[in-house]
């Protein structure tokens, strides 16, 4: 049985570049959802989002999303301390949704004579496809093993980690660089605006006053590694990825199955694959979008799997918004760090728990509590459900 451990971490988040900035923000319960600057929102229901601040380092001829991916992936690889040969054999699995859409939109709008908020380089247009992130990462970082781009909407980043873990467990590779990246795009912002799913204020997951989600952006990558391989080279082990599962609702284009059937199956399967009983799980990093549909159904699924009030539940999206393809990996990273530091991150802006959410949602302030197992949930439109189960190192 080949076990999978996490040996490298990298992130760019609405708190800025780096894992340290991300964890500092998340552990402090800081909300990084602010007035939006990247896209035009006049007349929209919401004008706030969680943008990566102060520009994103790198050439403007790379798409913003490519630059986010490159920064986070490079940090993860450096953190893991892999040799060039180990990088060359590693798998590269990337969760993506928007690709270079932000730049493509700006180019198209300008050609149609419309003013655009953010300038965009025509050079970035070659990176329009979601698979461009993996192209860029492979060529710049020389990660040359099996390569896949997963597009499963809001669970893409989590799915990339699940697939990478399978490649390692199955013996195809010893090391994988996996995660997700997304920049804010007009199509995403306008789409959720049109669906009336955006809260005009920063989102309030699981709160009875919630009015919808907030959009965010960023990237996070994890280096996953076969446990014996990691031990042999003396790598730092942050946590184990003890189990992962993907299930499908096939119920509706946007709404989850009303019984949360696919969500519950994802959680139960991940636990079964990790050989972990529900009672051994202390923390759930929820999908927690702060839409009525998600929060109530996710809470019902959690209740079925864990029992009422039997686990701490919080939503990182209350601080960094919904970062789309990056969400699953940024939230997996928060889950790993929660285990490593013995600190459960809070749900910001959470005042009055919805009576239909019978859980301690860790309101506003992080909780110092040592947890042995934690799961991270990610549920994409169309019912693409992913649960990742992590175990504390040591």
């Amino acid at each position, binding site marked *: 049985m080949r076990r999978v451990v996490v040996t490298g971490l990298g992130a760019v988040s609405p708190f800025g570049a780096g894992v340290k900035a991300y964890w500092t923000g998340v552990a402090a319960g800081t909300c990084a959802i602010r007035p939006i600057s990247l896209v035009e929102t006049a007349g929209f229901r919401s004008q706030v989002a969680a943008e990566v601040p102060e520009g994103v380092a790198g*050439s*403007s*001829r790379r798409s913003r999303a490519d630059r986010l991916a490159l920064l986070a992936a490079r940090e993860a690889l450096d953190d893991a301390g892999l040799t060039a040969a180990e990088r060359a054999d590693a798998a590269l699995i990337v969760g993506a949704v928007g690709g270079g859409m932000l730049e493509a939109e700006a180019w198209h709008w300008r050609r149609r004579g419309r003013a655009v908020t953010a*300038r965009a380089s*025509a*050079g970035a247009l*070659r990176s329009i496809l979601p698979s461009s992130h993996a192209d860029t990462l492979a060529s710049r970082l020389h990660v040359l093993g099996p390569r896949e781009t997963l597009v499963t909407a809001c669970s893409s980043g989590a799915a990339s980690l699940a697939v990478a873990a399978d490649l390692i467990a199955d013996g195809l590779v010893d090391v994988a660089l996996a995660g997700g990246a997304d920049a804010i795009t007009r199509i995403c912002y306008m789409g959720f605006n049109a669906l009336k799913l955006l809260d005009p204020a920063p989102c309030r997951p699981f709160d009875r006053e919630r009015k919808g989600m907030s959009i965010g952006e960023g990237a996070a990558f994890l280096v996953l590694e076969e446990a014996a391989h990691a031990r042999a080279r003396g790598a730092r082990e942050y946590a184990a990825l003890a189990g992962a599962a993907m299930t499908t609702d096939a119920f509706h284009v946007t709404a989850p199955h009303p019984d949360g059937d696919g969500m519950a199956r994802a959680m139960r399967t991940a636990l079964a694959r990790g050989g972990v009983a529900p009672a051994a799980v202390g923390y759930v990093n929820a999908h927690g979008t702060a839409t009525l549909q998600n929060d109530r159904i996710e809470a019902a699924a959690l209740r079925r799997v864990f029992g009422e009030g039997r686990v701490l539940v919080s939503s990182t999206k209350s601080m960094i918004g919904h970062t789309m393809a990056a969400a699953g990996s940024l939230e997996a990273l928060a889950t790993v760090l929660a285990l490593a530091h013995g600190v459960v991150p809070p749900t910001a802006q959470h005042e009055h728990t919805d009576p239909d959410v019978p859980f301690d949602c860790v309101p506003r302030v992080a909780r110092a509590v040592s947890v042995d197992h934690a799961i991270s949930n990610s549920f994409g439109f169309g019912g693409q459900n992913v649960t990742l189960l992590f175990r504390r190192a040591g």
Partner: protein
Amino acid sequence: MEPKEVLDELKGILVSRLKFDPRRVADLTMETPLPKGVDGAVGLDSLDFIELSIAVEERFAIPMDESEDLVPHFASLESLSRFIAERAPSA
């Protein structure tokens, strides 16, 4: 940075990032035209120029502003070396 060092870096980029034949690149002079379609040129196409401009930005820490006409600077290794020497932050 010395012009010779800049030139060597640029030749390295043509080989490692743009995948031009190392022997062909070794023979280049400062005056050899870069763009495809010009007599005696190295033969860079539009995607090559994007890759080259990214590589120059990353290697020499020169942010390029596209509101400026960059084409004359990318005419030859001579013009590009001069452009880089003028803008590169002094080490």
